[in-house]
């Protein structure tokens, strides 16, 4: 039990970029325990796919050590492949194959595994058994990819953004697949942009940004590390000059104050019943009328935003440096 399912030490990956080399993974250490569901979170271009593909043996690291199920890619590649399952971020399967044919094909690669029907049943695609791939919706194709990853009955399953583009019901179905695997003692490593998914599904998460792990722990730990338990969000009427975010950071029981992209403010608060009266008094004093005010519990998304300074799905900008600039632009448009 002592041996982790995945062990990574000082992993780096450098791509030859157009102008300057891109350091997609910049020194990652990671231990994923057997039987846990581990989530990798991070904005676009953070290095999640690169990291996962190195673990899957599909990409060569520039430096660092990787052990998967106690084995190394260089010497035991074939053995590792027998024991892992991989779902890539968006695979295009041949259009004119049926679901059953494709799963049968992939089953033939493994010494042991599920039957074709079992694998398809796990992702609830039984009704599409004889449909061509081209007749499946995007979400159904995604589930087919998961069925294919499951057909070898893997000890360790990699899922790169498995639920992107799925409807809520399909997403829940996929969560059940993951929980079922975990209940059977299997290990799952998934990447996602959905905080809710990570909170509900993952035993532990790592937040990656710019190729580095900036936070690691269970969702509850990360949330409590943020300090406050509550978030107070409010907006002001009028498009005159907005007070800066730190105008509110000194209020009673406010731990952190941030300006949101939509022109509203977001306060991390330990005791709402003290912070809100203080806020109202402050607004009254400076003659700023309130447009809206809501409170909610801290979520992993808030952790993420406070760590990286931006939302997980902030635009789709490739360059991570763009995101804060976008927000400033949003604010000045409002102000002017």
């Amino acid at each position: 039990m002592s041996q982790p399912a995945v062990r990574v030490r000082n992993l780096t990956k450098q791509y030859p970029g157009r102008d300057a080399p891109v350091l997609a993974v910049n020194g990652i250490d990671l231990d994923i325990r057997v039987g846990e569901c581990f989530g990798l979170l991070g904005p676009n271009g953070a290095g999640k796919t690169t990291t996962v593909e190195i673990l899957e043996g599909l990409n060569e690291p520039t430096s660092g050590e990787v052990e998967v199920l106690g084995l190394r890619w260089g010497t035991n590649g074939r053995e590792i492949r027998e024991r892992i399952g991989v779902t890539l971020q968006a695979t295009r399967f041949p259009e004119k194959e049926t679901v059953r044919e494709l799963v049968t094909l992939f089953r033939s690669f493994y010494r042991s595994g599920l039957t074709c029907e079992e694998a398809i049943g796990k992702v609830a695609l039984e009704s599409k058994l004889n449909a061509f791939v081209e007749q499946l919706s995007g979400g159904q194709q995604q589930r087919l990819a998961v069925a294919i990853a499951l057909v070898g009955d893997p000890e360790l399953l990699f899922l790169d953004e498995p639920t992107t583009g799925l409807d809520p019901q399909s997403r829940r179905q996929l969560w059940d697949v993951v929980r079922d695997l975990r209940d059977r003692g299997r290990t799952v490593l998934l990447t996602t942009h959905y905080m809710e998914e990570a909170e509900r599904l993952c035993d532990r998460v790592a937040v990656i940004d710019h190729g580095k792990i900036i936070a690691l722990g269970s969702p509850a730990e990360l949330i409590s590390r943020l300090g406050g338990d509550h978030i107070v969000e409010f907006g002001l009427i009028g498009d005159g000059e907005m007070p800066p975010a730190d105008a509110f950071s000194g209020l009673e029981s406010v731990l952190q104050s941030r300006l949101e992209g939509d022109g509203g403010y977001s306060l991390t608060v330990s005791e709402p019943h003290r912070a809100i009266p203080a806020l109202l008094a402050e607004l009254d004093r400076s003659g700023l009328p309130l447009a809206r005010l809501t409170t909610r519990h801290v979520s992993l998304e808030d952790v993420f935003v406070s760590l990286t300074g931006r939302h997980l799905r902030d635009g789709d900008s490739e360059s991570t440096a763009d995101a804060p600039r976008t927000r400033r632009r949003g604010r000045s448009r409002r102000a002017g």
Partner: protein
Amino acid sequence: MGRSSPLFQLYLTRLREFYRQPARIFWVYGFPILLAIVLGLAFKNRPPEPVAVDLIDGDGASAVETSIDTYNARLHSSEGTKNVRRDRPPILVHKLPEAEALKRLRTGKTALVVLADAGKSQPVTYRFDPTRPEATIARRVIDDVLQEAAGRTNPRPAEDLYVTEPGSRYIDFLIPGLIAINAMGGGMWGIGFLLVNYRIGKLLKCLVATPMPKRDFLLAVMGARLTFLIPDLTILLLLGKLMFDMPIRGNVALILLVDVFGALAFAGIGLLIASRTSTTETVSGLMNLVMLPMWLFSGVFFSAERFPAAAQPFIQALPLTQLVQALRAIILEGAGLFDVAIPLLILGAWTVVTFYLALRLFRWT
């Protein structure tokens, strides 16, 4: 090889993927057949087309008309007899006022305008553009008719023998070329383009993440390619045989062997093209770069020997040239294994070199 072996399943997948794509089937089978039929009919031996001329309505016009009518009548009555010169076409005459005839000549509606003075020994004028081949033919034909009508005799009897033997017509030349073109297209599309598409769709990555033996994947793709060769070859040979009465003088097994060698050489080139390429644009460009020179120089549609001697070493080194020549030698001349040993060697060399390079360069991700 069991039903559940990776090799068998991969092979099956490839076959299904092909025969379930009607559009692809058309391009592989339908298109060469259409090409053969269209070109075969276009170059079929036929009686010559009638020659049309404009005759200026004047004093000598009716005499000219009479001569031409007599000529046409004689041509008609002697049809099928041996001593009629078959390059002599019937003549169609339009009698028109001068201004209109000249206008038709200027605007290209007629190729030749004839003006004859009255009387058998009076001059005749032909107006035409000498750069238009049909005009010079018409002039020659009409002039012969008029000169003979005026009393010229041809002292030396002449006979034309036309070559229409099966085996030496254009269609016989063309069909082995189309078989070779199919082998080339199969290697480019069925290997090169296919693998690049798999790479773009991340399917290669997805496959290589499983314990699938890589060798089995490549063997299955190659096996499927060689399997498709059989219908390719059968259809074109049958078309030639049944529709155009093309002779198949050599051994069919040898034809298949040569075709397999050709297909392997092109599969190697396709694999090499696909070894690193990861966009459709690049692979299309590379495929054109490979195929275009061979379409032009390898003697599929007209003989490669027409090109200058300096270009011949290059042309002869092209795999398509060797494949076309070997297929023609077997099908049309009944060549045996030893006669096609050199083409087989050259194709084999292409196969070995391209596979060696491609397998070293090939990227799965």
